[in-house]
């Protein structure tokens, strides 16, 4: 004990910094000197000397070694790792369950991380990426704001340059495509239009040609390296000409390097935008293509050096730009700047120039992946706690041997991280397996996302795994670190002190609620899918082969195709029905001169018969009747109703004006679902005589492949230039509903994860519960409880939890589908008790199996075995 006259601060300081084994000797000596000094010099001076002596004690040989420092930590970590691996090996089942569930969950996380890192790379290659913007427009039609468009008026940039100095603009256009003939080869070519400022600030590389002039003259084209490789190969294409079907002959003025993978602008060729006025003169483009009112097709990219003029540009766009619209009351637009690297991923904007990826699916996927991962992490926590019975003794012994809280904490944290790193190894295998499927799930993702394993990505994964391990290990580590060794060694008692039972029950309930949601989602989506495929759309879907006409004469094609015995009928249409396409038509009602928008489809006279569409009144088109002048149309029932024409037969003979021609309704057809199941049937007009794009072949043979080959042979004899393109209608409709299959795949995958993870969680809980109640079971058994009663007793609690989960989850899922997801479809299936009940039964029986494995064993144990020690 300290002498009362010794300065206590100095004493405490010394006690704190001095090495424990030295303290007794040194403090003893100092106290002896202090007492002597007190007699010799008096108390005050003695105290001063004592304090000085203590301060002089601060030297390496006296200071206690801190329990930290790099060397010490490394040694400690090494021992943690060894012990962790031994523990993982000893409990193979537990480790396997944990590693498996964690790696499955992690693979979902890895896919999302990979996707996000890929998307974040978009348009990062532009040198001035922070100073380049695209002008986007929000058109307002009769004070109704329409969808935001990525495009803007053709000459917006030009006008802006005249008002604001020190900015650069390049004007681009889309839909430059067609079959190109280059060096006697025919290839489909897809590209963009651009003006001569294209290379001024966008970081695309012109490998051959003059940057300033290559895109100046009309009918100039820059070819991408890959297109040159396919056509001109080693030859120099500069100065050569290529034909692009429907556009004209172009002179090659340069070669441009292929755009980087992570660019929202993708092209095989760049055509000078000065070509477009000439194309409009030729009738290829609408005359109004460059009017301010025409907002599609053209894009303005602005480079504002150092962003100095940004405020000016924005205020010009806000105040001056809308004044260029001729009739501002009727049609105007507001404009905004969109930074170039915020285009992909970006907000949902229509009329985009390249591939787009909106935020919503990314957010949804991230949330799902996060939820799965959290679930797996909680499971780890849960199972670790459940096994605490066994581990507690180990911790108790360690603590008795002097382990500190922090070293126990470190041990369990390292264990979780090691497990998580093992899982990472396995999940990278899963990642590679699932990669392509995942990309296929997202619309157009194959153009944007590569998910290639780079060193950078793997580094990110490792950080992710360590983080996951840290989170997973946190709760068990804290629990074991806090455990007192006394409680730890009195095994039976300490388990009662386990806290957070309600929390863990809550977790199980949440997990099962999610599981039931996903199970039901799969079942309901499946029902909607089969409903969609089997829905009577009003026309015959089977045995129709749609052949893309690619500009060939219909009568020649018909004559040639009909020569094949397998083809029984041939008709023509402007688009394919039932796969989400429709066309708008402006119609003038001749009774009151009102302009009305309806939908139309061009078909020939054999279409109705071929597609088995019922004619309710009037007659079909006659051969050649609309060839020279359009005079007859067919309409659907909805048309007759919407225009108040009375009964179908009364509607016959009504006159409308279409494209300045007077046309008469000659027949009324039954309503068909021409667009898709999401849209209501609108007023629909069948027109005749021109604009056919598809030949519809009725195939009467059962030999699908042989017939396809023969049809292709006929095609090749008629058209030597274009590739044969044909699809079966029922296949096309099935493909159209593929998104539902994709939904099922996502829900199924996530559901599988959720179920397996929550079942493992339940398994852990059951294991824990039965192990802690072994003595109770033994006593009950001795007093005559039957095995069945015991199983019931032990399982009851878990079923209650699952039942609560079902009660929470199924209404959520029902509401989600009934009111939100299926509500988007006009033609939809109904959710019945079959789907709800079936899903619940499935999940319940799975839980039953999980629980029974534990309770069955517990109920069958011999009471003597468990009660022997009492």
């Amino acid at each position, binding site marked *: *004990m*300290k*002498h009362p006259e010794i300065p206590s601060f100095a004493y405490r300081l010394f006690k704190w910094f001095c090495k424990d084994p*030295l303290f*007794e*000797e*040194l*403090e*003893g*000596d*100092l*106290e*002896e*000197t202090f*007492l*002597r000094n007190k007699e010799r010099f008096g108390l005050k001076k003695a105290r001063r000397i004592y304090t*000085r*002596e203590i301060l*002089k*004690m*601060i*030297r390496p*040989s*006296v200071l206690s070694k801190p329990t930290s420092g790099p060397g010490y930590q490394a040694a400690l970590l090494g021992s943690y790792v060894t012990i962790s691996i031994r523990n993982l090996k000893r409990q193979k089942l537990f480790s396997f369950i944990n590693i498996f569930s964690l790696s499955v969950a992690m693979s979902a996380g890895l896919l999302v991380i990979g996707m996000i890192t890929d998307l974040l790379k978009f348009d990062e290659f532009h040198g001035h990426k922070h100073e380049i913007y695209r002008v986007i427009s929000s058109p307002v039609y009769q004070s109704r704001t329409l969808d935001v468009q990525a495009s803007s008026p053709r000459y917006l940039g030009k006008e802006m340059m005249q008002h604001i100095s020190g900015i650069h603009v390049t004007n681009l256009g889309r839909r430059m495509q067609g079959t190109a003939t280059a060096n006697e080869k025919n290839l489909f070519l897809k590209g963009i239009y651009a003006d001569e400022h294209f290379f001024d600030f966008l970081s695309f590389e012109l490998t051959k040609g003059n940057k300033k002039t290559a895109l100046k003259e009309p009918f100039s084209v820059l070819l991408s390296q890959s297109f040159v490789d396919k056509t001109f190969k080693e030859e120099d294409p500069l100065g050569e000409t290529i034909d692009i079907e429907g556009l004209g002959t172009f002179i090659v003025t340069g070669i441009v390097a292929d755009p980087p993978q992570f660019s929202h602008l993708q092209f095989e060729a760049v055509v000078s935008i000065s070509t477009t006025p000439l194309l409009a003169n030729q009738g290829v483009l609408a005359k109004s293509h460059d009017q301010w009112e025409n907002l599609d097709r053209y894009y303005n990219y602005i480079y504002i050096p150092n962003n100095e003029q940004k405020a000016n540009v924005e205020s010009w766009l806000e105040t001056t730009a809308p004044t260029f619209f001729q009739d501002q009351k009727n049609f105007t637009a507001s404009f905004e700047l969109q930074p170039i690297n915020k285009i992909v991923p970006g907000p949902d904007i229509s009329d985009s120039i390249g591939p787009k990826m909106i935020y919503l699916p990314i957010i949804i996927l991230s949330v799902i992946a996060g939820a799965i991962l959290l679930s797996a992490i909680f499971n780890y926590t849960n199972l670790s706690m459940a096994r605490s019975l066994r581990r507690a003794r180990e911790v108790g012994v360690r603590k008795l041997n002097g382990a500190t809280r922090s070293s126990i904490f470190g041990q369990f944290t390292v264990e979780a991280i090691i497990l998580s790193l093992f899982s990472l190894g396995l999940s990278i295998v899963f990642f590679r397996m699932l990669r392509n499927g995942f990309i296929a799930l997202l619309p157009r993702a194959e153009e944007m996302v590569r998910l290639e394993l780079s060193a950078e990505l793997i580094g990110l994964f490792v950080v992710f795994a360590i983080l996951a391990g840290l989170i997973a290990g946190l709760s068990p580590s804290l629990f074991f670190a806090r455990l007192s060794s006394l409680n730890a060694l009195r095994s039976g008692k300490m388990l009662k002190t386990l806290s957070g039972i309600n929390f863990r029950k809550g977790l199980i309930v949440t997990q099962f609620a999610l599981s039931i949601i996903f199970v039901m989602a799969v079942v309901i989506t499946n029902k909607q899918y089969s409903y969609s495929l089997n829905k009577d759309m009003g026309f015959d879907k089977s045995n129709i082969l749609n052949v893309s006409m690619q500009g060939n004469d219909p009568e020649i094609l018909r004559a040639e195709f009909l020569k094949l015995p397998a083809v029984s009928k041939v008709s023509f249409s402007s688009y394919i029905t039932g796969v989400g396409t429709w066309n708008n038509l402006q119609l003038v009602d001749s009774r009151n001169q009102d302009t009305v928008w309806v939908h139309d489809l061009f078909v020939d006279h054999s279409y109705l018969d071929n597609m088995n569409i019922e004619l309710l009144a009037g007659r079909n088109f006659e051969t050649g009747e609309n060839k020279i002048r359009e005079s007859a149309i067919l309409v659907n029932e909805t048309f007759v109703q919407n225009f108040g024409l009375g009964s179908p037969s009364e509607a016959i003979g009504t006159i409308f004006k279409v494209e300045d021609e007077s046309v008469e309704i000659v027949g009324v057809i039954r309503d068909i679902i021409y667009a898709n199941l999401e849209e209501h049937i609108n007023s629909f007009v069948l027109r005749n005589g021109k604009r056919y794009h598809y030949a519809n072949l009725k195939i009467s043979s059962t030999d699908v492949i042989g017939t396809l080959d023969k049809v292709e042979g006929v095609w090749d004899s008629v058209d030597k230039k274009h590739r044969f393109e044909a699809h079966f209608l029922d296949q096309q409709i099935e493909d159209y509903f593929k998104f539902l299959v994709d939904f099922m795949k996502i829900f199924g995958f996530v559901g599988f994860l959720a179920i397996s993870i929550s079942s493992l969680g339940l398994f852990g809980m059951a294991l824990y519960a039965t192990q802690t109640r072994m003595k109770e079971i033994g006593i009950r058994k001795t007093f005559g409880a039957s095995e069945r009663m015991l199983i019931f007793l032990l399982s009851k609690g878990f079923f209650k939890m699952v039942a609560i989960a079902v009660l929470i989850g199924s209404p959520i899922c029902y509401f989600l589908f009934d009111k939100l997801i299926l509500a988007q479809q006009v033609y939809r299936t109904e959710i019945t008790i079959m789907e709800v009940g079936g899903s619940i039964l499935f999940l319940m029986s799975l839980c039953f199996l999980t629980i029974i494995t534990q309770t069955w064993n517990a109920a069958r144990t011999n009471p003597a075995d468990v009660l022997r020690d009492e």
Partner: protein
Amino acid sequence: MKGTNLGEFQEIVMLSILILEKNAYGVTIQDEIDRRMKRSISRGALHTALTRLEEKGFISSDYGEPTSERGGRRKRFYEVTNKGLETLQEAKELREGMWGLIPKLT
């Protein structure tokens, strides 16, 4: 090796221990040095020297019985080992030899 040579202060400490015989512990060694060298050294400095000497194997130490005079804390007594004695001898001989070589001042 940190080396087995003897610093001047360490030599003094060892000699003090030898002088004190059985009663060589922190406080007495400190007093002895104070008295002989007319120089006040801190207990900390002495501790460092003792630790070094013990590391080199020149001295050894042992705790005594607890006494009431210093709050029940035991004293730690030091003793010069044979190795320490040898080293001291060598140092002494080296010096004497060198002294003997100095030409007598006439």
